[in-house]
């Protein structure tokens, strides 16, 4: 039995993850052709690399098909209810910083806080006969956050990409999305609510609490975690 480590299968997130491990004496690499999702691990025995889409890693951790996984805090919190019971945070990795925020058009000069948003939503519903639409792909996080702070008269509309464009297209009045620098928001004439930070996210190494563990397995995992700590 090997310890399975799940890592994002492409892009900057994969490269940064490889860098992070190599600084700790573990070389991760993709093998075979560019299109084949197979990988190798050097520098530690008994660990198998599994390349996955970052958004699938939370689910794989929760079902116990991988022992360790690298993915964003945002995805773990959105996809895993009661995530603390299913995964353990081993190490924030210092890259992939992204904040889940609420953003409204810059022309809404009257809206700066959640309090303003709530009042604007009530007025909007009266005028337009529908609730104020918020485009997002983070349904659960946004709904729980707004319910907790007591904002009403909004509705979530699903947007899996180009979310910043929904306001201009009038398919939503505002958005809840991940941003790192805020540049795309500004380019689309949006601004962040001053108290509208839902979650601060970064790439993180997680351990599955449900993945089965044999004794040989446990030693490998322990050695690996010690090496990563160094």
């Amino acid at each position: 039995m090997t310890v399975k480590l799940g890592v994002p299968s492409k892009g900057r997130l994969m490269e940064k993850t490889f860098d992070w491990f190599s600084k700790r004496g573990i070389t991760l690499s993709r093998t075979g052709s560019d299109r084949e999702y197979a990988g190798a691990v050097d520098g530690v025995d008994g660990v198998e690399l599994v390349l996955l889409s970052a958004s699938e890693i939370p689910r794989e951790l929760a079902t116990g098909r991988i022992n360790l996984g690298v993915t964003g805090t945002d995805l773990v919190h959105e996809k895993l209810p009661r995530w603390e019971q299913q995964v353990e945070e081993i190490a924030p990795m210092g890259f992939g910083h992204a904040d889940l925020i609420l953003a409204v058009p810059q022309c809404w000069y009257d809206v700066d806080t959640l309090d303003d948003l709530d009042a604007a939503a009530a007025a909007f519903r009266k005028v337009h006969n529908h609730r104020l639409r918020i485009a997002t792909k983070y349904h659960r996080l946004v709904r729980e956050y707004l319910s907790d702070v007591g904002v009403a008269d909004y509705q979530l509309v699903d947007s899996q990409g180009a979310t910043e464009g929904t306001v201009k297209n009038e398919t939503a009045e505002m958005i809840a999305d991940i941003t790192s620098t805020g540049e795309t928001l500004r380019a689309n004439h949006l601004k962040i609510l001053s108290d509208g930070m839902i979650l601060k996210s970064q790439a993180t190494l997680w351990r599955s609490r449900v993945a089965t563990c044999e004794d040989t397995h446990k030693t490998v995992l322990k050695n690996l975690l010690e090496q990563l700590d160094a």
Partner: protein
Amino acid sequence: MPNSPNRSLIMAKAALLRQNFEIAGAHPVDLPLLQSADTLLDLYGEDIRGRAYITSDALRGEQMLRPDFTLPVVQKHMAQGADPARYTYAGEVFRRQEHDPDRANEYVQVGYEVFDRTDPAEVDAEVFALMQLQLRGLNLRAATGDIGILLAAVDGLSTTEARKTALRRHIWRPRRFRALLDRFSSRIAPSPTRLKLLADDFCAPDVPQIGKRRASEIDARRASLCADAQAGPIAENELFALEALMTVRETMPYALEQMRNIAVDLPAILPALERLSARISALRIRGIDVDNLDFEASYGRTSMEYYDGFVFGFYAAHRPDLPPIALGGRYDALTRQLGQGTEIPAVGGVIRPYLILALEEEMQK
């Protein structure tokens, strides 16, 4: 659900309860499992998505597995009901669970709902006493409250209509209600951003106008904020009275006495207190031990959003992990909202046979 009693026992218990409600004068009704998601969303807002299972088809769009019976009962009554009318029903409701795996996501409820324009105190007492009768021997604690008193208190504040509307809208969201109250009483200073917005020399930022919320709406909100800034803070005596009111927690007769003292500063609650007083008498006549019945002015504010008058729940004191065994209340405003111009005072309650059976089983051990 751990140790849940077997289903045929639950159904038998439900049938028995429904029969009791029929004997009490209710007409049995069968209600659909699937409800229009639009109606539920309009009523409860987006929060309902966290509590109800959603499905859909191409013709009818989004549908929800009924999270409770109140909405279909009201719809049925509004469409074809006699006046007055009493209904009973039994069946499953479905609640999506995202936090507590020990809570059931599907369970049977039996209900009794009364639509009646005559003596409201009498009908409140009828429903409460009927529920209590079904639960005798289980040694439950009853909690009661009255959202109508809080609503009357808000209505009676000497402040602008806009502020009262905002407070009324958030009576079921205590955190935002608190924030509004702090702002309207000038307990927190306006932010620099807000001060700039209110200043005479404010000019709108030179940015493109995008989205469906138009410039006129944005300007209108600034105008209303400027108007609000002209209104003085809510008077301290009224504020303290409202805060004292929200913390009243006593047995019914003492609670009434305390609130009569509070009414010195908030006389607008007096009619609502008279209704409570009449309810106490009606309960007493029905043999309810009101001298030991708890009353909490804020009861029902976090979980019973459509109730706007009398509210009640029955709890197993030694099993705080269980949801209420029965609960209910008055929802006049809901019939107004769904009735499209017509309305009828309504009060009802539901009882959960699976919890009764679980408690009975425990007692036998």
